[in-house]
């Protein structure tokens, strides 16, 4: 059942990418998170091993810890993407303002002289 859920989620991501609702680059950390949480959490040995590494007494809670870490990483990736977009938007606005003012300056120049 777990495998079916993972496959359905992976296919959903694929559909989102194909319909251009999600950029390929942005889907990468989501796929990564899905693989780690979906497949790795199915392995009892892996859960026990990671719990021992992280000093987590109750082994299944290690998965919650990993899920939170992945979510934080995803939020950080999205925040970086947003910041880059914001910077590009501002550069574009400055460029448009320059063009707008160039036109006004060219009209105003003969009036001033």
């Amino acid at each position, binding site marked *: 059942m777990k495998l079916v859920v993972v496959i359905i989620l992976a296919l959903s991501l694929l559909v989102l990418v194909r319909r251009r609702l999600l950029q390929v680059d942005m889907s990468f950390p989501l796929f990564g998170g899905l693989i780690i949480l979906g497949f790795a959490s199915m392995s009892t040995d892996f859960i026990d091993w990671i719990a021992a590494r992280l000093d987590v007494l109750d082994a299944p809670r290690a998965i919650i810890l990993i899920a939170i870490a992945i979510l934080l990483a995803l939020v950080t990736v999205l925040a970086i993407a947003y910041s880059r977009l914001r910077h590009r938007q501002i550069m574009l606005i*400055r460029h448009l303002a320059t063009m707008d003012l*160039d036109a006004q300056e060219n009209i105003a120049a003969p009036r001033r002289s």
Partner: protein
Amino acid sequence: MSSELTDKVLVFIPTFNDLEKLAELTRAVCALGHQFTPLVVDDGSSPPVSLSTLDKRALLTRLPGNLGLGVATHVAFDHALRHGYNLVVRTDADGQHPIDAIPDLLISLRSQEGISLIVATRTNRHEGHGLRSFVAKFVRGYFSTIARWMSAGGAPSDVNSGFFAANRSAMEVLNETPLEQFPEPQMYILAPRRGLKVGEISLEQLSREHGSSTITVGRALMLLYRFNIFVLAELLQKSSNR
């Protein structure tokens, strides 16, 4: 006095919903002389500023949303650098900065050796009563202390003044760094740290006749946060450059 100035001067007036005094301000700037051009940067006002309400020599650009004073400042610097303006003056749209003080500001900038940026320090900035005024005084004191320390005494005593004049070197240097929503402390720290000499003159700020300050409690906290992050980033940059 403005006849002593032969430089091409761009006086930029950023505005966000402060429309009442714009026509009067642009007319006052044009009255200073033919070398003065007013530029209104409408930072997403609703309703937007109309060019027909301004003096016929005024330039106007409308930004698609409230992007902050930093972006408005970049727009003005970009335009001044492209069109050969020797000097840029920033004045507020609420009419608190006396337009007739602009020639004095520029003459001080020109007459003091090596000055690239001059700031009009408000002599009455500490006036006011109540909790808001007390907090504002504390924050201003904090900004000034840090600014003086960061710039080895090169920053002006009023690092929140929005009334300043800059020459082309200052515009070029300040245009290299993305300026924040309320960029004054950032600019007045960056300038001396990038090798520019900053001067100051004293000036009494006029009282506000229309509207209210855009700095709310939330924005003030954000301003404080941004300032501290900027200071830490500058210190980190300095240590990584060593």
